[in-house]
């Protein structure tokens, strides 16, 4: 019963952090399940994939209502990440694990550096992101509960952002992750979306990218009721809490925690590459 409680509490924490950062929470879940609870890696990753969907479902309702999810942008970018995920699966069949983890460790370090240098949101006004932004009506707005001000933002570098989202999708397909860890930095640093908007939109997108992935895990029998059951319940409630708290957290804090997570994951992948 202690093990069950530990799984549940870890999942609540992973869901809380995941919803606040726009990621799936697998970075926390998988290492704890594997190293502390002796769950086989394949079953831990399977549970983590469903957890990403649970995080996305739980948090997206709050984020959509709060205006933090830019639905139009999310759908546009999700199209690319899903294609990327398909490519990722195909690449995974050809490329070696070491090459993949090595490349992503470098990508993550660059993302961390980009986010670290950016001390605050550099929001551009709606309509100033170019013709594509205006045509597709991609600008968004939300009320920041910290100061009660309405944040109206435009989206720039849409084509570049979409191209980079393909990489996020490929990472998702290759590594069995939600992809939020790459999506948020792209939206934040390249597309000039406010960090809270990036978190809300990423949260919506990663549930879609992971949905297809988890189907395969189901069929391969790698989603085990004894692991995935308590993980999903814990992650769901953690995400509900995280999505309620996120709007009140300072932007700089979200960015700092995110940079920390990026560095940890980059190191983890670098260790896997050289081991």
């Amino acid at each position, binding site marked *: 019963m202690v093990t069950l409680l530990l799984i549940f509490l870890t999942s609540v924490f992973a869901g809380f952090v995941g919803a606040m950062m726009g990621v799936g929470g697998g970075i926390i879940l998988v290492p704890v399940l594997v190293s502390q609870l002796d769950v086989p890696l*394949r*079953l831990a990753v399977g549970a983590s994939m*469903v957890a990403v969907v649970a995080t996305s*479902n739980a948090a997206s309702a709050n984020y959509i209502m709060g205006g933090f999810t830019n639905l139009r942008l999310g*759908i546009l970018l999700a199209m690319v990440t899903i*294609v990327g995920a398909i490519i990722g699966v195909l690449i995974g069949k050809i490329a070696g694990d070491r090459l993949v983890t090595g490349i992503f460790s470098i990508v993550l370090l660059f993302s961390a550096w980009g986010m670290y240098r950016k001390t605050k949101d550099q929001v551009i006004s709606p309509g100033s992101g170019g013709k594509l932004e205006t045509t597709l009506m991609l600008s968004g707005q939300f009320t920041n509960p910290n100061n009660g001000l309405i944040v109206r933002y435009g989206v720039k570098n849409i084509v570049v952002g979409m191209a980079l989202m393909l990489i996020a999708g490929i990472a998702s397909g290759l590594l069995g992750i939600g992809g939020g860890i790459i999506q948020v930095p792209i939206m934040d640093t390249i597309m000039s979306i406010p960090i809270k908007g990036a978190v809300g939109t990423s949260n919506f997108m990663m549930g879609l990218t992971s*949905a297809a992935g988890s189907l*395969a895990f189901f069929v391969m029998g790698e989603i085990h009721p004894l692991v995935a059951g308590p993980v999903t319940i814990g992650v769901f409630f953690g995400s509900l809490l995280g999505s309620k708290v996120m709007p009140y957290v300072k932007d700089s804090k979200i960015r700092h925690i995110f940079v920390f997570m990026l560095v940890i994951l980059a190191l983890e992948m670098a260790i896997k590459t050289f081991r």
Partner: protein
Amino acid sequence: MKTIAEFVKIGSYLVIGLISLGFLLLLFQMGEFNLNNLVPIESLENLEYLGSWIVLFSLGLLVLISTLRLPIAGVIFLKDGDLKFHIFSMLSFLLILASGLIRLSM
């Protein structure tokens, strides 16, 4: 957009309720919570407990709810006369299905 949020919220709460019930039933049937010698489920015939079936079925429903956000958004965009995003939503939905089929075939 409120429709999508409400759909996901109500659907997910119901599914989480189902998972909890299934998991409690599973614990009751097993008599203990033991992760020792856990292996992938090679065949559905290995699922000897009703609780396991309920948990897996509910997890499948959770994934379905997540995916169904796209066609719902597509219908909303169509109602608003936004044909471009109706096509994008439906295309993304089809891509998810295609992605699932590709993974299954590998």
